[in-house]
């Protein structure tokens, strides 16, 4: 696991690219190289606040989507005053970043193939995971992505060779990405599943993998104020009672650690 420098760092935005319903925010970053699945807390240096309801206030958590050529990439969907402000950033603007934080994905073992399953803006950490698996010369990972509609499905371009499902059938398979996953596991169950997406999708992946005895690693999301274990705000119930802190015990957890994936507690957006 890569440790974060102590204290937030000021990065310079190098660009922001439109990707369907999403934006890819890029910033020059000479900090530690993140492991796939790790995240950073982000805020605009200028005008962070005074948006809708006089927010945002705390930084916002984003998976690192890619680290390449001295840049960190983050995938952002405008769903609230914080994400909106980040979407407004332009090249040259300044960005606060604290990270890389949290526990990332663990590489596949015993010859299992990697199945990457993503939903919506949650596809982000799977991009850097795919980069890393390819860099290690592993056999090409199978990538299955689900989106609500065609505009969001344009996000699939973040990864290579993705098979896509959309709720409305406008692109690829009409239905859920978990249906694509079930078909893949029918064909070859000797796999490890890496998943990130909305809670409903993650719960579908978790239940399917449990039934078929396939190991799965789930990247979770939760409302979070700090990202480093201080606020105790980002908890999810763990199997056997008690809670996990998504920021330091995750965001990637072994599916076996959870009884189920609950509808997450509304991250400040």
């Amino acid at each position, binding site marked *: 696991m890569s*440790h*974060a*420098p*102590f*204290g*937030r760092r000021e990065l310079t935005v190098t660009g922001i690219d439109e990707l369907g319903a999403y934006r890819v925010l890029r910033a020059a970053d000479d900090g530690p190289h993140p492991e796939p699945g790790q995240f950073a807390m982000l*805020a605009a240096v200028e005008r962070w*606040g005074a948006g809708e*309801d*006089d*927010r*945002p*206030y*705390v*930084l916002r958590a984003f998976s690192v989507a890619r680290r390449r050529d001295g840049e960190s990439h983050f995938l952002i969907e405008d769903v609230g005053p914080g994400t909106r402000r980040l979407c407004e950033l332009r090249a040259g603007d300044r960005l*606060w970043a*604290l990270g890389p*934080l*949290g526990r990332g994905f663990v590489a596949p073992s015993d010859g299992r193939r990697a199945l990457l399953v993503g939903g919506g803006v949650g596809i982000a950490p799977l991009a850097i995971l795919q980069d890393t698996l390819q860099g290690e010369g592993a056999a090409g990972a199978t990538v299955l992505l689900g989106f609500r509609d065609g505009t969001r499905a344009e996000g699939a371009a973040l990864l290579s060779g993705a098979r896509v499902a959309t709720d409305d059938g406008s692109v690829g398979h009409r239905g859920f990405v978990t249906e694509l996953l079930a078909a893949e596991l029918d064909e070859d169950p000797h796999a490890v599943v890496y998943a990130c997406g909305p809670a409903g999708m993650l719960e579908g992946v978790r239940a399917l993998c449990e039934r078929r005895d396939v190991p799965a690693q789930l990247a979770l999301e*939760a*409302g*979070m*104020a*700090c*990202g*480093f*274990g*201080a*606020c*105790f*705000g*980002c*908890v*999810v*119930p763990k199997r056997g*009672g*008690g*809670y996990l*802190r998504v*920021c*330091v015990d995750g965001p990637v957890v072994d599916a076996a650690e959870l009884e189920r994936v*609950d509808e997450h*507690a*509304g991250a*400040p957006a």
Partner: protein
Amino acid sequence: MSVELCGLQLAHPIINGSGTFDAIAARRAFGERLREEFPFAAYVSKTITLAPRAGNPPPRLWEAAAGLVNSIGLPNKGLDGYIAEDLPQLAELGIGAGANAGEGVVPLITNVMGASADEISALLEACDEQAQIAAIELNVSCPNVATGLDIGADPRQLEQVLGAVRGRTRKPLIVKLTPNTADVAACALAAEHGGADAVSLINTLRAMALAPRTGGAGGNAARWLGGGTGGLSGPAIRAVALAQVAAVAARVAIPVIGMGGVQNASHARDLLDVGASVVAVGTESFRDPATGSTIARELASGGAEGRRSTQPA
């Protein structure tokens, strides 16, 4: 800029508010450099209770205007777990013990909470036996099982409870006052009469938030936080903190630890100017864990002098 607090020597006047910095978790995030760059002159633990607590069901956070409402529910391992598991890990960070040559120990202030004089007595006695603990902070924002009223919300009750427990420890006792009371200065005075060596304030202001409306007109008052209500912190409460710290400092002779919405050295200087001896940083550490060091550095260099702004401007 070193200061003395109840016999504790602090390298600078900035500490953390209880429950706003978990040194053990921070080491997992930042690694061993946390020890070298530790931002606080003393480390205040999360609230420890006799029995372990899982904390409140999520959601636990609500972002407010310039602040945060939290309803965490004081999750902790309980007294035995704290002593057996946390104290050794804190020593590895040089907190309360385990200093390397040429390095100072960061004094450990253990925050405890109990629902009766008996519970508080047991906590104080156990802490008293731990050489690693330099001082004890008593969280009195807890309903008294006997009266149902928060122990710290009523001066007479507070003085009575403190009178019953004060003799259980020879260590300095800091009372963390609750702001959710009619007269916080009267409560501070009661704490002093009850034997407190210092008071700290302000704790969070009771607050709540409603779940997003899901259509239909009115009538839906579902609460957002799993705990029902929570506490407001952050810049939103800074002016309230200044007023309460000033009122308390004017009334008591014991040292005052001031906190509430401090984001920079100017805000810390304001609390010192109205009579605080030490300032705690809380919610701002969530936005930058190094805030404590930044403020201490600026205070030491005199950077906050004369920076109080004129308003409206």
